[in-house]
Structure formats: structure tokens, C-alpha cells
């Protein structure tokens, strides 16, 4: 069976206009990611990694080119339709965890499912928290959790809507080495169990090497796209 392409990027360009001047952040980027693949996007600061992630995940719209996610061309969608795509197909892990401070750990995990209108999600959310080892902290607010714990809740939330693709933006960027190791391990295990495609934006070479493939960016262009030897 031929591999299914989950994310197709074609001639993607993003230009920002600021005070009458244009700034090209991404220029003619092309690649495709197969379902179940784990991919790292690396590059120096200002190379356009985060912008690329934003465009791939439907958080922003491109100046030109196309993004097709799970067979859906994001370019032609309205903002609300893109929100639906995010809810139905995408999971997110952020560098700053981005847990909603007014919700408990459990509620944070439940939100994506609740947004889909799913009922009786508490049990599944508890299972996920259990998988990340935080079942006993389910009623704690983010402020009451350490950085590593917050990122583990974030992982549970990312997998809660059973996404087709998971985007992680510097998932260990705010964590110490030991915690980073634990979180990385957990992320890859959960990903493997769920069979999700994983796209990680990172500076961390070691983390990048744990993926199947590394796409390197520089000056807004793809300068390398290589498969990691396992």
C-alpha cells in the first residue's frame, strides 16, 4: 500500500508587510509528509520555522502557494473552517505549554473533545492524564504544576482529539535536560501508540535526530530534507 500524504506543501511563500516594506519570511517552500512520519523542522533563529508551522497548522494564511492537510486545501478555507480542521485533525504542543490558566489540568485536556461536542469525555481525559503520569494532579491549576508537568498535561491535551497530525513548537525549549528527556520519551511513545504524524520545530539537534526525517530551513528556504538513519 503506497504511503498516504498527510501534509503537502507546494510553493509556499509568506511575505509580511511592515511600514510599507515587505519582508519575505518563507520563499517557495515545497515538501510532503506521509502519514505516521515523524519530522523535525530545524534552522537558525529567523529562518522561518515558526511561520512555517503556523501555515502548516492553518493558524495563518500564505501569501502564495498551498497547504493541503489530510486532503484538505487550507488556502481556500475561511477562518472558521480552518478552526474546524484544527479541532478535527491537528494537535498542538507549545514551547510555553499554553495551558489555559483558569482551567484545571483535567479541564485543559477535555477542551478539544468538548469543542467537538463529544460527551462523557472525563474518563478518556483521565486516562490520558494517567498515561502522562498526572492522574493525581488532575484538579490542579497550571500555576500549581511544574514546567515539566505542564508540558505533560499539554501532551495529554494534544492527543485528546486523536489528531491526524501533531505540531510541536520547541516542545522542550523551556525544560531542563532531565525533564526534556522524559517529555520527549513520552511524546514519542504516545505518538507511536496513536500512530499520529509528528512535526516538531526545534533547535535541539538531539531531538531532531530522534525523528525519521529532518527538514532544514535557512533564510526562509528549505536547504536540506534528509532522512535519519535509525
Amino acid at each position: 500500500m503506497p504511503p498516504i500524504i498527510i501534509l503537502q506543501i507546494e510553493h509556499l511563500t509568506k511575505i509580511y508587510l511592515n511600514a510599507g516594506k515587505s519582508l519575505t519570511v518563507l520563499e517557495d517552500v515545497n515538501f510532503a509528509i506521509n502519514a505516521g512520519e515523524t519530522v523535525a523542522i530545524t534552522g537558525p533563529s529567523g529562518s522561518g520555522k515558526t511561520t512555517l508551522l503556523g501555515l502548516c497548522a492553518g493558524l495563518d494564511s500564505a501569501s502564495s502557494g498551498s497547504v493541503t492537510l489530510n486532503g484538505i486545501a487550507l488556502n481556500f478555507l475561511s477562518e472558521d473552517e480552518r478552526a474546524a480542521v484544527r479541532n478535527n485533525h491537528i494537535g498542538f504542543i507549545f514551547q510555553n505549554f499554553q495551558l489555559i490558566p483558569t482551567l484545571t489540568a483535567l479541564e485543559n485536556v477535555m477542551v478539544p473533545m468538548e469543542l467537538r461536542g463529544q460527551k462523557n469525555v472525563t474518563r478518556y481525559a483521565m486516562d490520558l492524564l494517567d498515561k502522562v503520569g498526572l492522574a493525581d494532579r488532575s484538579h490542579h491549576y497550571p500555576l500549581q504544576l511544574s514546567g515539566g508537568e505542564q508540558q505533560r498535561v499539554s501532551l495529554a491535551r494534544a492527543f485528546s482529539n486523536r489528531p491526524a497530525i501533531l505540531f510541536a513548537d520547541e516542545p522542550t525549549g523551556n525544560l531542563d535536560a532531565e525533564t526534556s528527556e522524559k517529555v520527549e520519551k513520552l511524546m514519542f511513545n504516545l505518538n507511536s501508540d496513536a500512530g499520529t504524524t509528528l512535526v516538531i520545530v526545534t533547535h535541539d539537534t538531539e531531538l531532531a535526530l530522534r525523528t525519521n526525517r529532518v527538514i532544514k530551513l535557512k533564510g526562509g528556504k528549505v536547504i536540506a530534507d534528509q532522512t535519519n538513519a535509525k
Partner: protein
Amino acid sequence: MQSKNTSTAYKKVGYAWLLKMAWRDARKNRSRLFLFVSSIVLGIAALVAVYSFKDNMERDIDDQAKTLTGADLMVESRKPFSANIAQVLSRLGDETATERSFASMINFLKNEQSRLVQVKALEGNFPYYGALETTPLNAAGRFKSVERGALVDRTVMLQYNAKAGDSIKIGSLSFVICGSLDKAPGQSGISSTVAPVVYIPLKYLEQTGLTKIGSRIQYKYYFKYKNSSQLKQDLKKLQPMFDKEGLDIETVASKKERIGKSFQDVSKFLALSGFIALLLGCIGVGSSIQVYIKEKLTTIATLRCLGLRVKEAFLIYLIQITGLGIIGSVIGALTGILIQFFLLVIFKDFIPVELSMQPSWWAIGQGVLLGVFISILFTLPALLAVRNISPLNAIRQSLERIKRSADYLLYATYCLILIFVLGFSRLQMNNWVEAAIFCSSILFACFILYAISKLLMFLVRKLVSRFSSYLYRQGFSNLYRPNNQTLMLTVSIGLSTTLICTLFLIQGILVQRVQLSSSKSQANMILFDIQSGQKDAVSALAKSYRLPVIAQVPVITVRIDKINGRSAIGKGHDNRAFQGELRVTFQDTLTSAEKIVKGTWSGRKEKDGKIFVSLEDGYARRINAKIGDAIIFNVQGLPISTIVGSLREVSWTRMQTNFRVVFPTGVLEDAPQFHVLMTKVPSNTVSAKFQGAVIREFPNVSVIDLGLVIKVVEDLLSKISFVIQFMASFSMATGWVVLISAVLTSKSQRLKEIVLLRTLGASKKQIMIITIVEYTFLGVFAAGTGVLLSLSASWALSAFVFDAAFAVPFIPVLSIFLSVCLIIVLTGVLSSSKTLNTPPIQILNA
């Protein structure tokens, strides 16, 4: 691989989830939202209190309207009715009663004490509605049937230790007291204290000897109509004749209107305080939610990343605001009802109706709806900004908001706010022009404050590098750096200061207006109804008791016939000038309470025969008379042509005779007149002896012992002052809450910066200096502009709305300015202190 939903169709989340999410999001922000709720509570409480009080009073007046007049129609004249009029009146109504009333001294024969009362000689079954409430109950009927019976006001009976069966002497006739008069139609507690009533049967009036020439008797007819349409027909037919004959009429409707008018100033001020409290609440609501939404930026962006739609994000916060609006409004309405009860207790003494102590559901409903409405309306600009939060903010915080080329929804919201303020102002003001002026003033104030904040930022940016101290540079640069709240704070602090200071100044004007001067050299006894022939003898009598004659002035009763050739009959004119009689005087020099503000005053009739009169400036404004206008006065039948020669400012609070119209000498000397003599008695004993002598020698002369009246009136006025001050302070409290909330919400923007500075080694003292510099500068600019705007607004309000002179009370104004600055700096410093005492890492990790 799991099954995938490949559609982009969005499954709408239900309202139940949105409600749940709104609750979840709000529960950890209670202290922040408390300020929002407080603004609503105070604003709505003030408004519900005033509205409920007014609503109750109006309903009580409506319910008791007929018992206020006691009849369907009352016709009154200060001179005996002509035969023609008497004939017309005899055909009116289904039942008629007649009354003659006048002020007179009565003498309690038991203890030889005297008191000025309002004698009412009655014939017929008045009152037709309500009753003369007496003790014993049958005294109301008995005083008419027994030989020379009288009803005496209860307070007077108590004061002079009189009992039923005792005798009083009125003029030269003695009467037996049948009972005490507890309540009569239209009589309030205060009116019975100042002018207590004694009822006697009309048939004995002539025998008292008090109806001779010179007596100032009011002639009244009361009519009962079984058919109200007949009354309307009669009024329509006879009104021109009544006007022509100078008769005053009172119906249930006109009485209601008159009672309403007599509380106009106080209720106008109460409404203004309520409105200002509400406006301040609106500012508080708007500013607190603006910053609240700013702080929610990442939460909203994250939710949007997780698939929340723009509309749903907006709805979560709309639900939150609506819920808080409901909570705030309900608490506000309940607080308002409590305040209303308090207002009722204060006002019950001087409102001639039984005030009911019940909440007005209409006012509560109105308050709650209004509270929810303004919560939503004034937070909409901030809520609409939720639509502009991009999900990208979750991964890149510095990202700017989505820019819309033209946000019509936002423009529509601003228009709605403007329409609301205009419409609501209209409800408090007399007409659309006043409402438009008020709204334009608010807009103008906002514009000035906006301009000032821009100027402030410009100046600071230009001048900040000149400071050698880093701390000053940091403090000042906080005013223009990204995330600064200079614009929002300048507008909200400035506008709050403007409203607080305006309210303070206006309440000062009103309180001053109702305060009596009590200078030691001022008179405390007035003798009036002195005939021209008695003038010198009364003066000599006073001097024989070693009493000073402080003033002795002639009083002439006149009416205005025409102003610039226009009479009252002309349609489309303001007929106020022609209604009722005027008491005028003539004099050659002005008194110390008078000051010419326009024109000239000669004090004598001109050689060419022209008569230049002087009008009190407020009165001139009310009747639209200007310098040079020709006025024809009707001096008891004789027309006298005059020209307005000058306008005077009169200090009405001085306890002395003051007049709206003053004639020069050489005109009215021969007109029918009486005289007023003012003196000062040193003690109650001398007062009693002198009053006794006056009543013995000049039974027609009435004496008012102002000592008692001043005390009663001062008690009353201090109550009014208290209400005014209470309501004003209530609104001011709202202003303070808004100020504190504005500073606190803005301060949260600075907290992380403070922590970073602390992490970099800044001491507490250094952080404090930075904070103090920033907030002092902001406070001085915003409060200073607010105070200047307020002085302009107070001048305009006092001149055009309250009709009062305006002088800047420098010390209180300076105190307000300094208090605002102090509160801003203190709130800023105190809100930082918690951060300073928390380890930086705790906040950095948050």
C-alpha cells in the same frame, strides 16, 4: 491509523459548553472581575435609589392626589370675588365650600401666650376627599356645630400645652378648642410647623374684626365634581375669564405638577448624581474589561488553536460579562432599594403625601436591565477585539492583532454608546438640546483627555533622555513604551475626576443655596401686615422695648399685565411671568444683599416720567425680560408702565426682605400697601412680652418669631443637604472605584517588568521610585485636566441648569486634585508591593 473526519464542517459547540467555559474562565479571576462588578453595583444602586424614590413618590402623589387638594377644583383670589365672578362660581360643581384664610396671631387665654398661625375660616363640607384628621375624631364636625368652635394645629397645642376645651382669642373674638388638627389635605409635617393652621367656622370671621381694610385675606372656593368631563368643560370655558380676573385655580393635576416642581432642584440633582454614578460605572466597566481581555490574549489564541471559532470565543466572554452584569445589577438594585428607604425616611417630613415604603419593581427591573445592557454595551469594544486575536498568538506572543480595514461592527458599537448616552441624558434633562450639550461636553472632555495623553507621550518621549537618573527615565518611559496604558488611564482618570469634581462643586452650590445665613446682626423677628398709619407707632413700640428697627419696608401687591406689549393671552409664549401676584417694594438705595449686575439703578423716578425698575437677574431670566424691556404692572387695578433699568443679584439666603422687582421712589408711595418691620429680640422673654404688646395694640399685625422658624427650616435644610451630600458621595465613591480599578488593571501589565527588573537586581526602593514617577506624572496630567474640565462644566451647569452663581472653592478643588493623584500613586505602589514581596521565580514561572 485512526478513522479521520476529513470534512471541514464545524460541529457547533452548544451553549451549555459555552456557559461552562465562561464559568471556568471567570472563577480564577474573581478579584479582577470584582472591580467590574463594583462599578456596576454602585452605578445601578445610585440609579435605582433615585428612580425607585421618584417612582414611589409619583405613585403616592397619584394615589393621594385628590386628598392633596381635598376637592376637584379650587379657585383662589387675594381680593373679594366680584359679583359677576361670584355668580359664575355659584353655578360650578356639584358641591361648593368656601374658605377665607389669613395669617394672624392667636392668643391662648389660659397662659396669655401668642403665636402666629394661618387662620382658615371654613364653610361647607370641605374636604371632599381625605379628611380633617382630628383628636378627638368627632372634633372635625363639632367645631362647625358648637358655638364658636375651633380646631388648632396639634403641634401648637403641644407647644402651648393647650387642651380641648381651652379658649383662644383670634382678633377680638374668643373660640373654644374642640380638638387638635392632626392632618389636613395637602399639609406636610414641615408646613404645619412653619405655618400651623387653626380652623374656625366662616360665620364668625366678621366678628373677629380681622377682615377690615389692610387684612391680607385669601378667598377660596372648593368644588366637588361628580363628572370629571364637566370639570374639564368648565375649565376650558372659564380659564380666560379666570386669567383676566387674576384668579388662581388649582386642580388635582396642577397640584401634582406643583408638588413635583417644588422638588425639582433636589430631584434634578439626585437624578444627576445617579446618572453620573452610572456613567462612571460605564467607564469602570469599559476600562476594566479592556485590560481583562488583553490579559486573555494567549488563552483565546490557544483556544483558537484547539479549534474554537471566533464567534464562540466572543460568546464565552459575552456570557461572562452578561453574567457579571446580572450579578452586579441585582446587587446594585438591592442596594439601591436600601438607599431608597433611607431617602424616604429623610424626605417624609416635607412631602405632603404619605410616602409608602415599598420597592418599586419598575425601578428594580429598569435598573437590572440597564445594568446588564450597559455591561454589554460598554464592554463591546473590548469584546469585539476578541475577533482580532489570531491563533498565531499562541506560538508568537509579539504578533500584532488581525487588522481589519474597516470594522463596521465596532463603529456601530461606538454609535450605539453615543446614542445610549444621548438618550439617557435626555431622560435626565429637560430637552434634546440640553442632552446634546451634555453629550458633546463628555465627548469634548474625552477628546481633550485623548489629546492630553498624546501630548504627554510626545513630551515624555522628547524629554526623557534629559534625565540623568535611570529610575526617572524608566518611570517616564513607561508612559509611552509598548503596552503602556497612558491613553486609557488618562481618559478614565481624567473623566472620573471631571465627574467627581463637578458633582462636588454642584452639591456645594446646592447646599450653600439652602443654607441660611445666621449672622448675629440679622433679624430674628418679623412684623408684617403693618398698615401705613400704624408704621410709626409700631416702630416706636419696638424702640420702647429697646429693640432695633433693622429694616422697615413697604410691600405692594402687583401683577404683570404686559411685557413689551405682549399679554398672557397670546399663544405660543411662556406665560409664567403673568401667573400669580408679585410683592414688590420701592426704595432709593440698594440693600447690602443686592448688587447691580447689569444696567444702572437711580432709585428715583426720572424727570421725564420714565420709571426704571430693577429685576432680580434669575427672575428676569425666567420671564425672558432684558434691560430696556417695557413692562406694564397692574397695581391693584391701576396700570403702571415701566422699563427694565437694571438687573440685580440678590442673596436670598440672607434673613431679610428681598424682592424680585424693586421700584424707584416717587411711584408707589400712594398705592395700597402694608409694611414689614424687622427687629432682633435678645431673648424668649422679651419676645413674648413684645409679641403680647403688639397683639394688644395692633391686632391686625402679625409677628413671626424667626428663632423657631429658623430652627425648623435649618433642620429641614440640613436634611436636604445631607441627602445631596450622601448621593454625591455615593457617585464619588463610584468614581474612586473606577480610578482604583483603572490603575490596578493597568498595573498588571507592568508586573512582569517589575519582576524582570527585580531579577536584574533592582531594589524595592528603586522599583517604588519608578512606579511613583510614572503614576505621579500620569495622575498630575490626568487629574489636572479633569479638574480644569470640571470647573468649566460646573460653571456651565450652575449658570444654565441650577441658576446659581459660581465661585471656585480653591481649597476643596485642590484637595480633590491632590486626592486623585494620591489615590493613583498609592494604588500603583500598593499593587506593586505584592509583586515586590514575591520571589521573582514564582512570577516568571507563572
